[in-house]
């Protein structure tokens, strides 16, 4: 059991709360760097996806988990990022131009939906983002001259100062560095006034504005940042799968992104990574499990949808804090052994009261 006794404000601001964190994260860092040289090509490919979806997860987590907004249309930002990257790359732009442009254009898209969304809450916001997603998808499909419409668009490997990221290992390090960078930037944001303003908006908009938080500015900023991160993820996504088309960015894709955040654990950056890993690993597990099932069951075409739905519902009912929450509970159990108390993380029972009349 470890108690942290703070004597200095600087300790509050530190990235790692105590030496133990430094050790374990350091170990993780070493493992991540060594991974591409030790794992099979297939596993490295999965890691690519996990990094990409982690970045997107960070973006969505910022908006949903930390600012308390809702977005059922994040695939639209993914699409903007992917197509921007594809178009600029196709025009011969190097990575240091195309990637920031993807981020900027996605941020612009975020502002476009963010501004009308300022007054909207809850289900209205969800529907507005949903509508935005559908409209963006349709625009991409119709604007064939630019995007190739339903025929899709091919994307070559990324290129930076003459170096082409066309090998698994090099692309891995590109994704990994961007993931770590975005993670650090978000951590920085969260320990500074802007991050606190976001959390304030999530918990109580009225008192946040009474404390001087300009709701319009910060909500829009949150949308823009979230969209920018998702756009970066989208750009990497485009390079990864080398062929993008509008039907990869539908509402179903948006729902998958939200699942990352919910199953991973709302309100923590770890949650985004856990959620991303979950989304990538699950279909593989199902495919593997099919080999072990009797042939009748294995032939089930809807199996993936059922498992996905069941897991989503099960996590929300039994583990609302997500994978990260479960991880915290397990870790606390070990830390406090044998003094772990059953009800430590229990939610208080609450009754529904109509939002309409409160």
């Amino acid at each position, binding site marked *: 059991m470890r108690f942290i006794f703070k004597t200095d404000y600087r300790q509050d*601001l530190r990235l790692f709360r105590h030496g133990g964190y430094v050790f374990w994260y350091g170990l993780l860092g070493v493992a991540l760097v060594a991974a591409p040289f030790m794992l099979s090509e297939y596993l490295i490919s999965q890691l690519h996806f996990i990094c990409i979806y982690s970045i997107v997860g960070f973006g969505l987590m910022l908006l949903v988990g930390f600012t308390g907004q809702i977005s059922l249309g994040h695939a639209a930002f993914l699409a903007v990022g992917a197509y921007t990257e594809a178009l600029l790359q196709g025009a011969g732009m190097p990575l240091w131009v195309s990637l920031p442009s993807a981020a900027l254009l996605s941020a612009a898209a975020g502002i476009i939906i963010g501004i009308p969304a300022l007054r909207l809450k809850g289900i209205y916001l969800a529907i507005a983002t949903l509508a935005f997603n559908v409209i963006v998808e349709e625009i991409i499909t119709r604007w064939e001259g630019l995007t190739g419409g339903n025929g899709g668009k091919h994307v070559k490997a990324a290129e930076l100062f003459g170096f082409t990221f066309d090998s698994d290992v090099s692309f891995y390090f590109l994704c990994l560095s961007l993931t770590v960078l975005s993670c650090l930037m978000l951590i920085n*944001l969260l320990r500074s*006034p802007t991050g606190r*303003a976001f959390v*304030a908006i999530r*918990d109580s908009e009225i008192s946040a*504005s009474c404390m001087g938080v300009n709701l319009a500015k910060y909500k829009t900023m949150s949308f823009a940042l979230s969209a920018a991160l998702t756009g970066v993820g989208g750009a990497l996504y485009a390079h990864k799968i080398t062929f993008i088309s509008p039907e990869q960015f539908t509402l179903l894709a948006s729902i998958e992104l939200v699942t990352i955040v919910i199953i991973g654990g709302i309100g923590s950056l770890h949650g985004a990574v856990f959620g991303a890993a979950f989304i990538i690993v699950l279909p593989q597990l199902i495919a593997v499990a099919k080999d072990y099932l009797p042939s009748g069951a294995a032939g089930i075409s809807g199996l993936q949808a059922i498992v996905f739905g069941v897991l989503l519902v099960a996590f929300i009912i039994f583990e609302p804090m997500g994978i990260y929450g479960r991880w915290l509970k397990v870790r606390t159990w070990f830390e406090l052994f044998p003094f772990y108390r059953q009800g430590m993380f229990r939610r208080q029972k609450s009754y529904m009261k109509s939002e309409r009349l409160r």
Partner: protein
Amino acid sequence: MSFFKVEDLGISFGGVRAVDAVSFEVNQREVYTIIGPNGAGKTTIFNLIGLLYPASSGTIRFEGRTLNGLAPHRVSQLGIARTFQNIELFEHATVLQNLLIGRHRHRATSLWQELLFTPAVRRAELAQREAVEKVIDFLELAHYRDGLVAGLPYGVRKVIELGRALATEPKLLLLDEPSSGLNPEETNEMAFWIEDIQKELGITVLMVEHDMNLVSRVSDRVLALNEGRVIAEGTPAEVQSHAAVIEAYLGGND
């Protein structure tokens, strides 16, 4: 130039005149209390001052500046802070973070600096924490500093609510029923704090209160409201013995 002046303030909610032609003036460094039975419009006046919704008539002036029509977040920047009757704290943040949000209007760093956590941001953060520490010391919240607000008892939350308002370094502090839900010891402490806020910190206090003992103890002047209208104004003793006030609270001689 008056410190804080409300003139002819009025608002209707769907046909009900919640606040009707209310005018009063608060002098600097005084404790001014608004009393009245439930539904008299006291919290509504606070919401109007805080610009949560616009008044349908009247003006609000603070240090010579008209507040009507400004955005709610500007009010805090001008130096007015408020607490809420039903405690609007940030439940899923620590006490320290709640208080630090109170310092929001004093921030000086931009988004890009914060993303990169430049030394300037680091210095600013340390400075904010020192400022908040003074509030923590003043309200004796030190042992709650790192705990989440969600699990704390009601009495402590009221104090944190007060602390958050103080962290903004206001010139005018609006307290909405500071003693509601507190037991006698906590109310006693609250009285001491209000006196300290007035005398040591030099902050003007405008408060809404039901507890008459507290009112008589700390207030310099009192305003009595009933059904949205002013019925009396003066020192606590004057107002409490005013016929109209007694009638509003206890009913007339039938």
